[in-house]
């Protein structure tokens, strides 16, 4: 009972540390998911030079289709482009009155194979497209995709650096609390050593305590993260709700939750091992 307070403090600190780490994991998970959704929608638009003869279009489509990473190529004529703009403008299509379709350049909408829908692979396709002289300009929203993937990368890096620091903190805290517990049971441990209890027998209860502290701390972190996720992301005002339906804000998958719980247990165990090595020497 005397050890209840330090144990609760340890569990609380582990929970806070794991909550910080889990929050970053959740953020990184959702942003990666978002990046994946956007990457799936990535397509390359190759604008043809004005005046490209129409008899060159079909062979060019075939040539483009043969490029590595290309899945579908669709030709968008200036008339198709005009029709698309009218559809997008809806009731305000009158704005386009007086504009001739000829001012809009013809283009190819190129859909990529799944494995090429990321910022690195897309560049390989774009490099090949740039070598084709009939194309004037290639667009694929590269800045947006690149910036976003850098952001996700930084977030992941922060998550692991922070995770490393928190890991050291958790081991330090668990080991110190367990040293207090061991000190409070000093007499009992001394008698155990006198009568020949094996070192494993003496250490097992402390290892178990460390494992439990880690498991409870990890469990609490997941629980609070769940409340936070529900509170912040799901009870949102209606105007934001409409916006968020396009961007799903997911909770951590079960596999990640299990990893976090196991991580907490491993850290708790490691903390208790450090404490045992320091103060449970057989004497």
């Amino acid at each position: 009972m005397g050890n209840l307070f330090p144990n609760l403090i340890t569990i609380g600190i582990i929970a806070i540390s794991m909550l910080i780490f889990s929050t970053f994991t959740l953020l990184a998970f959702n942003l990666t998911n978002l990046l994946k959704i956007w990457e799936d929608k990535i397509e390359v638009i190759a604008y043809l030079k004005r005046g490209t003869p129409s008899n060159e279009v079909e062979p060019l489509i075939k040539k483009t289709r043969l490029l590595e990473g290309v899945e579908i190529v669709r030709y968008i004529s200036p008339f198709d482009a005009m029709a698309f703009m009218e559809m997008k403008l809806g009731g305000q299509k009158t704005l386009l009155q007086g504009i001739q379709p000829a001012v809009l350049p013809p283009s190819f909408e190129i859909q990529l194979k799944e494995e090429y829908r990321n910022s690195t692979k897309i560049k390989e396709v774009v490099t090949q497209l740039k070598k084709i002289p009939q194309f004037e300009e290639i667009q694929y929203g590269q800045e947006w995709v690149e910036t976003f993937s850098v952001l996700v990368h930084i977030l992941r890096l922060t998550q692991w650096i922070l995770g490393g620091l928190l890991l050291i903190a958790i081991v330090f805290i668990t080991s110190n609390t367990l040293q207090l517990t061991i000190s409070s049971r000093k007499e009992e441990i001394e008698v155990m050593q006198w009568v020949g209890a094996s070192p494993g027998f003496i250490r097992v209860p402390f290892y178990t305590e460390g494992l439990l502290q880690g498991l409870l701390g990890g469990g609490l972190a997941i629980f609070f993260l769940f409340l936070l996720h529900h509170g912040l992301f799901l009870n949102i005002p209606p105007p934001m709700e409409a916006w968020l339906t396009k961007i799903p804000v997911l909770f951590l998958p079960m596999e990640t939750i299990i990893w976090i719980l196991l991580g907490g247990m491993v850290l708790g165990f490691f903390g208790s091992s450090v404490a045992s090595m320091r103060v449970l020497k057989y004497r």
Partner: protein
Amino acid sequence: MDEAIIEMHHVYKTYPNQISALSDITLEIFPGEFTFIAGPSGCGKSTLFRILFCAEKPTSGEVLVHGMHITHPGFKKIYQLRRKMGIVSQDFKLLKDRTVNENVAFALEVTGHPPKEAKSKASEMLSRVGLEEREKDSILALSAGEQQRVAIARALVNLPPLILADEPTGNLDAKMTLEVMEIFTALHQKGTTILFATQYTGLIKRYSYRVIQILNGQVWNGRKMDIHKGREVKAGE
């Protein structure tokens, strides 16, 4: 003759502050012997005992207990050694939050015996030391002599062939000392090897057991000390 149960060869112990606790100790204890380790307080008796049950390492020299080279750097199985010996000390080392029976049974439980068996064996041992009526009492309800008897019962419950008793009567009055000595004598008669440290010459004189005299960390049997010169009196002096 049987092989010695304890062998110490040229054992030295010097603490980091350069205080020499033991100097060139060589001795042998044979199975079934009752041996007094005699000497004044601070002469090195406790250090000798602590080396025998591996609580301390000697600075140099070789020690064998039950044939195990306990001073060998690779010796790690201290717990196996301690299961073959019972340790009794002046300060009892009993768990105050447990009953008399629980204290004795504890020694068996932590070495892998089922709790029921441990309790029954503890009861048996407590009746051997005359405490069958106090089994369920708290340790704090016992007199010092009774507490020492519980400590002896705990040391014996594993039926060890060797008992190391470091000043077990140091905190007891004359009557209680005799009660405890009766238990040790009975044990010795049943064949247990006993190494008994004491500073009371009166107690040693009552029994005709072997005595190893320790003085200034050395074995002084048959030697004389000139307390004015602070050294041994040589033959012919």
